[in-house]
């Protein structure tokens, strides 16, 4: 089962880093550390997400997300050890997520990770300055696969605003902070929405007042990204 790891900042700081790109770019191992933070936060939220989902769905969401990112950590750690570049790492991560869980989240997060794999194909490192592109790739992958529109009460009501907030110019730290704020607002806004796609759609107006579990887990992912990058983001200003 999922091994729990210390936060990525601790792990990452213990690793030998190149003198130049250490603070401004992530190598494959550091991206695996990022996945570890996400997996850990999702594992902690397993029950909470399940309960959210139980109100309007079938309560499997916490498990799907936690199991999915646990599989991502296992597969990507192995791939990083083999020397995979950043693009391949995301592709491996996407496939492993999909095969681990299926469900609804499987294809959606697999598409997100595969899209990131395309965006960073052939790259040895992921520049901190390109983080907004990572969010944009996630949002685009999820949107293309799930076809949800804004206001449908899905994870897109978090990923869309977060990606747009990250696109606004500024230092990476500010952009990530804005993205997280937009993500939280988007999550809270799903409370006011009537689900129109997915399983909760069958509940119609009874879904009002409930936070969408996919939106809640998306916020956890984005918050974990920010947490895992805190060490790097702290360096982004002279």
């Amino acid at each position: 089962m999922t091994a729990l790891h210390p936060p990525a900042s601790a792990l990452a700081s213990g690793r030998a880093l190149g003198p130049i790109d250490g603070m401004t770019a992530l190598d494959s191992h550091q991206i695996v550390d990022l996945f570890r933070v996400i997996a850990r936060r999702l594992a902690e939220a397993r029950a909470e997400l399940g309960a959210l989902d139980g109100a309007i769905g079938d309560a499997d969401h916490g498990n799907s997300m936690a199991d999915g990112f646990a599989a991502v950590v296992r597969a990507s750690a192995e791939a990083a050890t083999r020397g995979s570049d950043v693009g391949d790492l995301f592709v491996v991560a996407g496939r492993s997520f999909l095969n681990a869980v299926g469900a609804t989240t499987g294809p959606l997060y697999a598409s997100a990770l595969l899209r990131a794999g395309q965006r960073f194909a052939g790259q040895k490192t992921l520049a901190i300055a390109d983080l907004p592109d990572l969010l944009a790739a996630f949002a685009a992958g999820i949107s293309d696969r799930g076809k949800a529109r804004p206001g449908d009460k899905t994870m897109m009501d978090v990923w869309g605003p977060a990606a747009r907030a990250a696109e606004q110019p500024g230092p990476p730290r500010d952009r990530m902070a804005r993205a997280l704020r937009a993500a939280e607002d988007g999550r809270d806004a799903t409370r006011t929405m009537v689900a129109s796609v997915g399983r909760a759609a069958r509940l119609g107006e009874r879904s009002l007042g409930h936070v969408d579990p996919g939106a809640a887990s998306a916020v956890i992912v984005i918050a974990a990204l920010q947490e895992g990058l805190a060490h790097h983001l702290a360096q982004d200003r002279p």
Partner: protein
Amino acid sequence: MAPRQPHKTADADTLTPMPLRYGDDPLLWAAWLYYEEGLTQSDIAEKMGLSRASVNAYLADARTRGIVNIEIAPEKFRALSIAQALRDHFNLQDCLIIPTEGDERPLIARLGAAGAQVLRRFVKSGDTLAVTWGRTVLALAEALDHPGLQDVRVVQATGGTTAKIPWTPEACASRLADALKARSIPISAPAIVTSAEMRAMLMQEPVLAEQLAILAEADRIVMGISSLRPESTIHSSGFLDGGVQHAHYQDAVGSIVGRFIGARGEPVIGPMQERTIGIELEALRRIPQRIAVAGGVDKVPAILAALRGGYVNVLVTDVVTGRGILTAEGYRDTPRRSPPADPAPLTARSHVKKLINAPQDAVDEALRGALLAHEDLIAALPDSPRAIRALDGPRPGKVGLVIGGGAGHEPGFWGYVGRGLADAAAVGNLFASPPPGPILAATQAVQGGAGVLYIYGNFSGDVMNFDMAAEIANAEGIPVRSVVTTDDIASSPIESRAARRGVAGNVFIFKIAGAAADRMMPLEACEAVVRRANARTYTMGLALEPGSLLETRRPSFDLGPHDMELGVGVHGEPGVVRQKLASADESADLLLDRILTEMAPQEGDRVAVLVNSLGSTPAMELYIILRRVRQRLKARGIIVHKSLVGPYYTSLDMAGVSLSLLHLDAELATLLDAPCRSAALTLP
């Protein structure tokens, strides 16, 4: 009424002795005189020889002691309590809530009538009244007739549009002015102009400047609130300039006075801001009375945003929308006063016992057990343990039939793998679609050169994963067709049948498909007959107790001791509507009536019936239901060709039943009767 005797002093002689029937309870007598005989409190005081204050205290006491219960019709009560809560929560001047379901008039017409009533109450001679546009605003203007006032001016809140809609700003303003016999002040410019420069130039025109100055003097405004959902009329209004919305207004949830606001009511500024002629949001907030008339659950985010932004201080909406706004704000319905002490409910099921080992191992352990129990029928693929293949069945030239879905529906799906049924099943985690991997492995294992047919219930996860597997299989040269089943009539109205879930009716659909493939029908023909079977299968379920999940061992939703949930699916999720617990016959009728209404069978038609346990409802109860269903079908002159009773398609330990009817035709009857052999269904 008792004759009044105002000057008589109460003394022992004139007092009416308390009639015997009240025993010696003066409260009861006082209450009777007041509520039943309609006496005034003074009359009662005289009759009983008490002070009026004492009578008043008696009557209050009678209410608290439950001698008198004041019943307000529940629908009206709900409307009142929601209106009160909205007023308090958003600090409104006033709030009117109308029933969502009413007479035969559409909601918009009834909202308009309610808005007209509110406006009649507030509008005064000498007022300057601003008005926006929209269907509800026009309905209000049409419902209003209030000619007695003087010197009222009605002014458009925005410029006009040339959109081909009846509810343009111009139409709304002039109709409202007519109804009030008021002077109508237009805004002689388009609401949206081509550029900021054009707007600046226009605003300097004396005519327009004068009109805008009048708008700035408005005492009240009547406005609609628009959602930005695809079905909203804003898209045909001229206020959204083509594709502009997508680029800049994605963070907007609604529109008022032609401006856009985000979820917290903050203005969303885009390129149209400087091209819009009309009142601005800041100026709107300065109008002393701001009456919004809007309803419909799709508008909840928009109305909530308008309330949060303080753009509204009088709200007219309907019960469902009002409650939606409140629940979105975290408000819960509170019981009215303290309800009479209910007999304590039986011990609530808060922890459910289960015979499992580690929860995360349950799916695989159960599957391994099933494979051992039925080792003469099924086996897992060596490299894909969640892909289950029939030992007898798949063969060259035959269409391969692959079914699947989440675990938790046992004996679904491996129970329907075998000769004359499915060739393989892919099993996911608990209530979660399998990933494309095992679906693809199953596809490769059972294809016999004639293509493969996928059949699964309509859930977004299953659709995505099966589609991904189909894409890969097609790319590998295996033709794949998919039929997504939609038999659950409770899950969506008939107009959107394609959005319905696929549930226990799958048993019939798998059977028809298996027989068609077993007869070596080609892929297209198999697909066609399965689609027809799906279109003619109708299912509806009800739950008495929620199921409980493996990890939490807690019920997956709350269901009161006297309630049942109608329209439940097969994943432990809540159903469509909750109602008072009914008897077996009443429950069977509830399900059957809905099914027959849609099926509309003729006398002499044949059906197959499945009475399915959702998990923990015992056979005894299922047979009681079947008995009633058969009785009703006989009375209708419908012939029951086959009856299945048992746990065919479950939802873990949910208590409840689903009823499925397959409306047979000659070919479907033949296919249904064909022999088959599997763990859950064997026909000779």
